């Protein structure tokens, strides 16, 4: 395979694997009415990236470290009664991350391109190493879902019911958030911290709109995630447009189609 063949294989594989895995995560985040968790974790990863750039540290590992830290803080807050609405709590964490990102960007005086890449992402930046990490984390996600889909489904339906039935709600939530932190960080280069939220929420929202059961919703959300990334990439390449923006707009377009489908195919409620 020649150089361009390798590049396009990498880009296409990254788009499909990243879109599919983020689409799957979104099912549980949207289901828990906590899709904003994704944007907090992605901004924590971005803040880590800025920190790494400032201090000359490895970008992926630093981003992963800050994303994991955010995931653990979120998990702790979710698992304890802190007498605050969850969206307010997430809003405060989001503000903290944004503040750190802009502070770091303000301190950097030279070329900002790598930092802007973290915000907007580009599939053209994807390397073989990134793809290997994405594949590895996707396998862990599949393993987690095979083991804990029943538990996650129950927790998403009712956290209280899960707790009173003796499910290890706190443990499963923490594992899920840690896994989310890894997958979001691995996809940061491709989609960018600002746009990753759309891949977490739109494919899942589309799947909930037309899916009849949780299994179908999970499969549909993964497919919609892959389609958003794949079609977005093709449009981006074909019309020389920004990749992250094309992926985001494709995911919103798919949601619009799902709403139309629902209008003409109302289910049993």
């Amino acid at each position, binding site marked *: 395979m020649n150089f361009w063949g390798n590049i396009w294989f990498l880009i296409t594989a990254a788009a499909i694997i990243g879109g599919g895995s983020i689409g799957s995560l979104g099912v549980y985040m949207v289901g828990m009415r906590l899709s904003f968790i994704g944007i907090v974790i992605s901004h924590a990863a971005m803040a880590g990236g800025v920190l790494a750039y400032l201090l000359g540290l490895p970008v992926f590992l630093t981003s992963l470290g800050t994303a994991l830290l955010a995931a653990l803080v979120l998990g702790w807050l979710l698992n304890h009664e802190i007498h605050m609405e969850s969206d307010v709590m997430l809003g405060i964490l989001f503000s903290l991350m944004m503040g750190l990102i802009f502070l770091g960007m303000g301190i950097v005086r030279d070329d900002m391109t790598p930092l802007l890449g973290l915000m907007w992402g580009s599939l053209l930046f994807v390397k073989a190493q990134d793809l290997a990490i994405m594949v590895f984390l996707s396998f862990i996600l599949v393993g987690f879902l095979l083991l804990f889909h029943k538990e996650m489904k129950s927790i998403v339906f009712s956290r209280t019911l899960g*707790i009173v039935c003796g499910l290890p709600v706190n443990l499963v939530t923490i594992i899920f958030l840690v896994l989310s932190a890894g997958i979001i960080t691995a996809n940061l280069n491709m989609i960018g911290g600002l746009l990753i939220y759309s891949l977490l929420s739109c494919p899942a929202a589309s799947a909930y709109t037309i899916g009849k059961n949780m299994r179908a919703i999970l499969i549909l959300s993964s497919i919609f995630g892959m389609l958003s990334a794949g079609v977005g990439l093709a449009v981006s390449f074909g019309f020389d447009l920004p990749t992250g923006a094309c992926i985001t707009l494709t995911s919103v377009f798919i949601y619009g189609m799902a709403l139309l489908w629902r209008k003409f195919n109302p289910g049993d409620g």
Partner: protein
Amino acid sequence: MKPFELHNVTCQIGKKPLLEGISLSVEKSDFLGVIGPNGAGKSTLLRLLNATMKPSGGKLSLLGKDLVSASQRDILRLRRKIATVPQIMDFNLSIPLTAREVVEIARIGRNGPGRSLSPIDTAKMEESMELMGISSLANRTFRSLSGGEKQKVQMARVLAQEPDILLLDEPTSSLDMDWQERLVRLIEDIHLKNKFTVVMTTHITGHLPSRCERIVLLKQGRILFDGRFGEALTKENLEKLYDCRVDILSHSGRIHCFGIGAKE
């Protein structure tokens, strides 16, 4: 081993006391009714009894295990043996779980994390749904069911859990009169057939089934009276409990209480 024993239990959030000096124990297969006005501490008592809250002081033994010193693993094990129908349930009705899948949650919890459901689990779920008369609803989405049908699914769920203790927190509160009556009879029937210990809270005396042999009157976090059904539900006790004038009517083994105005 007693299902639960509380010795001088205190419970508070911040500086606000929710329960103070509660001492209470039950025997296996007892049916205990807990009555009290809003804010009396009924739900807090049930949260202690289903191990989702620890006491701030005193001693609480659940199925022979001291809750204060219990590890997280022990607490999860306890919860699997104690079935609860909470008063407020945060159901996310955008999730299209079927009635069967809601009942299944009991078996998922009972089996422990990561385990697949066995044919025994499936058989128990089917049996519970049949007992509750909801087999025909098993594949309907939970969100499409009526309030009464949802409550029946909840009861099938607790039966599928095969608990040692069943906790019911104002189970009739969201139902219309017809379903309230049906549910009371259903609870009586479940207790008669299964013989597990039942604790039911309510602020409506008429909703306590005639099988409820013992009543605890709870007011402002303290036990006002603890005794037999007929001795507890007197005009004098209920007037003290609700701080208003009451009238009572005995009918079909149950005692109905009516507020008839403020105390003079």
